[in-house]
């Protein structure tokens, strides 16, 4: 189990943009929100991107607003 986790970790080591405390979760910042979307355009679960419950709530709201304005896709074919 641990081996698998490590393997998974080594494949994709990206630093969360939320590590920076000055970052505000906002629907007007699609570059930030894109990190929390899968390549299909779905919102990625909090445990995958290590977002806190509060952050995830803000994220999902912001992503949904950004989708209305076509800043982010609803789906990616």
């Amino acid at each position, binding site marked *: 189990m641990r081996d698998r986790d490590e393997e998974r970790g080594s494949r994709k080591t990206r630093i969360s943009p939320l590590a920076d405390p000055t970052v505000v979760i906002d629907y*007007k910042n699609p570059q930030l929100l894109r990190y929390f979307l899968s390549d299909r355009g779905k919102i990625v679960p909090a445990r995958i991107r290590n977002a806190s419950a509060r952050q995830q709530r803000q994220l999902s709201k912001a992503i949904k*607003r950004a989708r*209305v304005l*076509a*800043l982010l*896709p609803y789906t990616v074919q």
Partner: protein
Amino acid sequence: MPDAGVVHSIRSQRGTQREYETVLVLRSQTNKASISELIDRLKALFEKNGARLQSLDNWGLRTLAYPIRRSRQGIYLYLKFLGGSDIVREMERNLRIYDDVLRYLTVLVDDDVDPAARPSELTDELVEAASESSPDPVEVERARVEAERKAELERRAEEEAAAKAEAEAKAAAAADPESAEAAGAVASPAERKKEN
């Protein structure tokens, strides 16, 4: 309606207002004149309803994440204003009438703002700048990458040509060692000239 100029809410009695922000997506073909006309109309609407436009920004032409009414690109306009919920309803009703407005989204920023303590940041230059539509950053980036790739290809072609010329000169020198030794310095530039 008894009086259209009064905000009918508990906030209007306290003398405070709500702060909203709206993002508009306009069709990419919208020209400068119609953008400034739209802004003027909105400004007049705010004034008539006792609201106030606080700031205005143009994010420029952007590629949409998905096509809206067959448009693949849109001009983004951002505005911030003070007022009540009735002004939002009235503004959105007006926006629905415009064909150029593809999408709009109004978000409540602050629900208790003293209008006197928050002077409007709006200036004529800001309005002027907002009606200008700048080129799409995505397109600019794509053009830059394209230019870089072209330059890289040209550079590589040049390098290859130079290497080829050198190899040929060397081969010629090897085939004819006596003359190369005797007049190597003279022969090789002459040969290179011929190739060119």
